[in-house]
């Protein structure tokens, strides 16, 4: 009796497996790893894409730009997200492994310099931002604000956001050593919103009412100003692949670049490339 039941269950399971086999075995997998900046874009696009292509399964993981590019070099992912261009060293390492680290620009990101909403300062010159971060200016009254110490908040120096900010705003100069370090965009925004004298920088997608984005050289951090190039603290966001994307990976990247995909990019708080 017991045996019969077992057989019946087995038969049913096998039947289901065979029926669904058409899907299960034809499924294409795409693995995406990398920058946490691109995570919301990658996730939302993956969901939309999977709704249209039922035979494709996409898994999205964070880890950071370094991890994203490393996963292409080590062939542990199909797409490596990065908020910075690959370094020469990384490209060379890819060549050693027989991998062509191929850049696909999928979105733009403006970096907003943010302060506490209660701070009367509304705009800063690029030089002033640089002086604040390198330690030449340490009181808000020197840039037209209250007499209060400036609390400088920066990102961990291996993050893509730091690298871009360091290059675009600081000309590669060292951030003052006593700057606070936060490990994510949200953590920076949270610190700024709770600290009256603080200044920080985040991806424009993370701007909210809890913090105030300042004008840089008189240009406010808006999408329009990033697209027309007038806002200077902006960067490209990449999805790296091994050589030109092919097969399902190519379909996915084309989707991200399509109007639907770019709408998602915009909805997630980033700037479309067109």
């Amino acid at each position, binding site marked *: 009796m017991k045996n019969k039941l077992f057989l019946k269950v087995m038969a049913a399971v096998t039947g289901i497996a065979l029926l669904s086999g058409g899907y299960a075995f034809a499924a294409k997998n795409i693995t995406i790893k990398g920058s946490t900046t691109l995570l919301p874009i990658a996730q939302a696009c993956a969901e939309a894409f999977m709704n249209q292509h039922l035979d494709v399964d996409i898994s999205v993981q964070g880890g*950071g730009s370094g991890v994203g590019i490393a996963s292409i070099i080590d062939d542990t992912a199909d797409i490596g997200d990065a908020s910075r261009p690959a370094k020469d060293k*990384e490209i060379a390492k890819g060549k050693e492994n027989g991998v062509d680290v191929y850049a696909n620009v999928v979105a733009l990101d403006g970096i907003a310099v943010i302060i506490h909403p209660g701070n009367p300062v509304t705009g800063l010159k690029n030089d002033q931002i640089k002086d604040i971060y390198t330690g030449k200016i340490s009181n808000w009254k020197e840039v037209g604000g209250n007499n209060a110490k400036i*609390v400088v908040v920066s990102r961990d120096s*291996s993050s893509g956001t730091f690298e871009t900010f360091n290059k675009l705003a600081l000309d590669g100069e060292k951030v003052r050593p*006593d*700057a*606070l370090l*936060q490990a994510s965009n949200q953590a920076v925004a949270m610190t700024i919103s709770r*600290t009256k004298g*603080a200044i920080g920088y985040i991806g424009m997608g993370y701007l909210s009412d809890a913090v105030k984005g300042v004008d840089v050289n008189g240009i406010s951090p808006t999408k329009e100003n990033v697209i027309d190039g007038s806002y200077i603290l902006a960067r490209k966001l990449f999805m790296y692949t091994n050589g030109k994307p092919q097969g399902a990976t190519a379909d996915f990247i084309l989707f991200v670049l399509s109007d639907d995909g770019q709408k998602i990019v915009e909805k997630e708080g980033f700037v479309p490339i067109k």
Partner: protein
Amino acid sequence: MKANARRIKERIYKYIFSALAFASLLFLVGITITLFVEGTPLFKEVGFFKFLGGTLWYPTHSEPEYGILPLIMGSLWVTAGAVAICVPLGVGSALFINELASRRTRAFLKPFIELLAGIPSIVYGFFGIVIVAPLIQDLLNLPVGLTAFSGSLILGIMATPTVCSISEDALNFVPKEFREASFAVGANRWQTLTRVVIPAAASGISTSIILGMSRAVGETMTVLMVTGGAAVMPKTFFQPVRPMTATIAAEMGETVMGSTHYHSLFAIGLILFLITLVFNIVAELISRRFRLKLGLGR
């Protein structure tokens, strides 16, 4: 036949359990080897003393600096502060639970203190950012509330259950006869406690303190969120600092694999490992010494 089968069964169990016991040893060896293999290349590139004694940490700059002294100091300061908080709290509550509390209070209090140990560190971190840091900022009128002191406070609370639980066990283990003998020669409760019970439990209490220290020095998520993360030599408790663990956690995700920076993070891990190793050896030595002194064969 039956006896034989039982013997085989017993032997199988024995192998399974010894394999499990040795598995943890295997992990330890594996982790140690990884730390050495990935960490030591740094000393060729930077130099051991420049690494340990340097005061500037700019690992990704075009002229990189790999001095971790501020990070070591950050860890030590925050840990020292945590010890100053968790020892009175932990040992005090252990004494209360063991000596003064009624059975009912004890049955209620001890599990609750131990429950503190089960709260995930990220929850402590959130608590620190949302409640403690703004409070400290306003109370002390500081420019920013993310300081060594905030970190110490939270780590102290986190380490309290470790200290309390092990101290309480140690107090519990003091033979009843010790107390009875003390009362018999006319000592009062306070004298019995300070001259007999605490010295007898000293090995367990000091072990608990050192384990609490290890917990504090190795804690990562909380210090990353709460201590602010400024890589400078601390001058006061009320400034942001950057402990070693926070540095590794913040920078590991995005560093280029195989770079000097990558190796330097492993080297920090190696130094941290050596620090906790020293803590553990000291704990073992202390507990052995006290045991011998009291002639307890435990």
